[in-house]
């Protein structure tokens, strides 16, 4: 973990929360104290934490192909437990695929 903080803005709930360097998007959302993203396995398998990134840079770890298809990945769909923001991020925590 570094001192860097990235601001994450969720355009579904209207809430914004900080994400520390090296922290997963899901952890940061959970730490904000609001239920912005559903928490499941925290291991990229169950798909409960699926969100769409609308803008910003990020890295992802292994995500279940059953939960995020290649086409979806291209459109910014990620599993938040496997996503590390690399800068400010705009997300949509709920949408037609996980509402």
């Amino acid at each position, binding site marked *: 973990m570094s001192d860097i903080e990235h601001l994450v803005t969720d355009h579904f709930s209207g809430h914004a929360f900080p994400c520390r360097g090296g922290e997963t998007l899901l952890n940061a959302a959970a730490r904000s104290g609001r239920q912005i993203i*559903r*928490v*499941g*396995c*925290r*291991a*990229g*398998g*169950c798909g*409960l934490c699926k969100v769409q990134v609308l803008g910003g840079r990020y890295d992802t770890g*292994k995500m*279940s*192909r*059953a*939960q995020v298809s290649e086409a979806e990945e291209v459109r910014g769909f990620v599993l938040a437990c496997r996503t590390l923001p690399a800068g400010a991020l705009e997300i949509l925590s709920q949408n037609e695929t996980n509402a």
Partner: protein
Amino acid sequence: MNKGVMRPGHVQIRVMDMAAAVHHYRDVVGLVETHRDAAGRVYLKGWTESDKFSVVLRETDQPGLDFNGFKVVSNEVLDSLAGELKAFGCKVEEIPAGELDDCGRRVRFDSPTGHIFELYAEKTRTGKWGLPSVNPEAWPRGLAGMKVNRFDHCLFYGGDLDGTFDLFTSVLGFHLTEQVVDGDLRIAQFLTCSMKEHDIAFIRHAEDGKLHHVSFELETWEDMLRAADIITMEDVPHDIGPTRHGLTHGQVVYFFDPSGNRNEVFCGGDYFYPDHEPVTWTADKLGKAIFYHSRELNDRFLSALT
């Protein structure tokens, strides 16, 4: 009626990162690694198990369970059950001996809830790990992590619970030990082919073919606490427990493997003889049936599946 199905024998678990999975199942859960095959699959077992392996890890791009295999008493039983499975309407496939190293031929079949099962009669027997079969000590030294005794059972989610109930009771000779009913609808069923409280269980769910958990047996409530301590020490994603289920009365801890497959370690619970009546829970008491102490349902426990 007993149809010659002895016990749960193996599972093949899909994982997304083999090194992380081996660390989890071997060093954290405490299974013993017994083999690696040419396809890159890793074979493990609980130390008390007599056959060479019970857990096979296969690396791919999505988690879940490839199949759950049951050992039957003989090749004659295997042949007759293969015929009965076909007559029932299952898609039946013969897997030749050696597709899994050290395992005899398998009869693979699908089920109304979309899960794949297997029967087999032969697997290389290596005996309890670390102990001789003559004058053995109480337990072997050198076990890791939670030191689980054995792979015990799976719990699956799927739609046609009644169809899979027929398959397991009428074709395979399992008994219903416990159920949850919502009016006339059975929404959970626990089935056994032994004296154990369950050897397999199913919960009604919109999506077919899903895995809720793979379970490993431990001996005592103290072991539950120790398992939960290890989950924290290793920073494993924790789900729930130590606690007790109303269903089965088993004592449990749940957590996730590095690919998001849920694991259970459990101890205790009821037993079954074929003259027992099934235990029934009603849907309005579902909270207590699942979590006997909090008596509250938990979204993650019910909906995180692979």
